[in-house]
């Protein structure tokens, strides 16, 4: 079988029409998609409007760059302002404002900023440019965290001394728990992130059962999304609570145990700032003491409480937990745009504000 079947146009059209009929008697069912890639794909495939007013999709806090807090970004600025270091980052982070100035701006001023596709490439940069001290910015959930683990392990094995890691990695189980506990889960059902689940397994999210709502692990092709939405609607109608998986070709209950072990071997969970949610218990990953030599916070004595200027008027935090939609933000499409992003939700490829800007009603593809 070829995985392309999940984007077969004819099959997608038939499934979409059938699902529209199935939900036509429902009203205002709120489904929260945790993952930013789901948000963009739901827009791109035209599903957001196709199911209105029966189903509303609410974007959750699943954009790693967006939830990277002002407190995290202040640490990057501290490094640049106080040390002659080079920064290695994923491209998604380049335009995020660090108190008005982005990594792209720093690079324009001649500061060394390298973009990588993989965390393992950071080791190659440090090996090839030995005259410079480098810091890799580890951003993301359990999908990217094992890549940072692999990079640290390889750097340690090779005896690399001019590379350290600043971990902003975030723990998805902790944030779902926080959303439910704080009463911030504004949804009738949750679309769980397919690729995080491929790593952690869907048992990882069992906590959600305590909040009395159903959740389904969903893939990213159009047919995956429709199958997942259909499953979730069935569960809501039957008042079922629990987790089901509509992406079994990639996800099982256990996840990838080698990757989970790699995370455990290199990181501890710590309380961490999430933009929009504040400090979340066990919401972040920090390098284990064994890897102190690779921990940029320790190598450069980064202070624990750095001064932070919150962007005035930016409602990114409320967008991230589904409390408001980007169109409710006073800055959206007025001051804040992809060319002049005020908050990270407009910067990141997975950001909800960028999705609304890019795939606004007039731009949605329904063919």
């Amino acid at each position, binding site marked *: *079988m*070829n*995985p392309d*079947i*999940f984007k077969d146009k004819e*099959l997608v059209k*038939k*499934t979409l*029409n*059938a*699902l529209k*009929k*199935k939900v036509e008697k429902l009203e205002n069912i709120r489904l929260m998609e945790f*993952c*930013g*890639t789901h948000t963009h794909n739901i827009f791109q495939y035209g599903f957001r409007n196709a199911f209105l007013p029966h189903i509303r999709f609410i974007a959750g806090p*699943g*954009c*790693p*760059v967006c939830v990277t807090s002002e407190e995290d970004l202040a640490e990057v600025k501290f490094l640049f302002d106080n040390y002659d270091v080079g920064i290695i980052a*994923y491209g*998604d982070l380049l335009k995020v404002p660090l108190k008005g100035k982005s990594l792209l701006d720093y690079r324009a001023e001649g500061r060394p900023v390298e973009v990588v*596709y*993989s*965390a*393992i*490439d950071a080791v190659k940069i440090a090996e090839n440019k030995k005259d410079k001290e480098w810091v890799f910015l580890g*951003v*993301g*959930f359990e*999908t*990217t965290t*094992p*890549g940072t683990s*692999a990079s640290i392990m390889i750097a340690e094995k090779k005896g690399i001394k001019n590379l350290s890691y600043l971990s902003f990695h975030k723990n998805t189980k902790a944030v779902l728990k926080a959303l439910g506990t704080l009463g911030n889960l504004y949804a009738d059902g949750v679309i769980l*992130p397919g*690729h*995080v689940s*491929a*790593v952690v397994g869907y048992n990882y999210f069992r906590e959600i059962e305590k909040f009395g709502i159903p959740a389904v692990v969903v893939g*990213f092709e159009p*047919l995956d999304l*429709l*199958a997942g939405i*259909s*499953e979730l609607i069935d569960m809501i109608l039957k008042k079922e609570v629990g987790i089901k998986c*509509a992406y*079994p*070709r*990639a*996800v099982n209950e256990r996840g*990838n*145990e*080698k*990757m989970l072990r*790699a995370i455990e071997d290199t990181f501890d969970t710590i309380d961490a700032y999430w933009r929009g949610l504040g400090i979340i218990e066990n919401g972040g990953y920090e390098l284990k003491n064994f890897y102190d030599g690779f921990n940029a916070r320790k190598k450069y004595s980064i202070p624990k409480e750095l001064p932070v200027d919150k962007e005035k008027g930016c409602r990114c935090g409320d967008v991230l937990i589904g409390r408001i939609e980007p169109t409710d933000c006073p800055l959206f499409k007025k001051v804040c745009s992809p060319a002049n992003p005020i908050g990270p939700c407009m910067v*990141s*490829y*997975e950001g909800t504000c960028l999705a609304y800007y890019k795939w606004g009603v007039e731009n949605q593809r329904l063919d």
Partner: protein
Amino acid sequence: MCLAIPMKVVNVLDDFCTVELNGVSKTCFIGFLEDKIDIGDFLLVHSGMAIKKLNLEESEAILKEISLLIEGESSES
């Protein structure tokens, strides 16, 4: 950032392999995969690293449910 792409394995060398999609090829780390990887397998590739070998047989139940949804709704109309 959580985007992962299904790509086909065209070459394997120790902890790395070459994967391909629509004529574009990439090197990817497979050191964290639990399964043996062979040429022709499909991997879920994320940020230069394979996170899972796709088990396509597992899709059959989902495709059957989709067929039932289509049949059910068309028979009602």
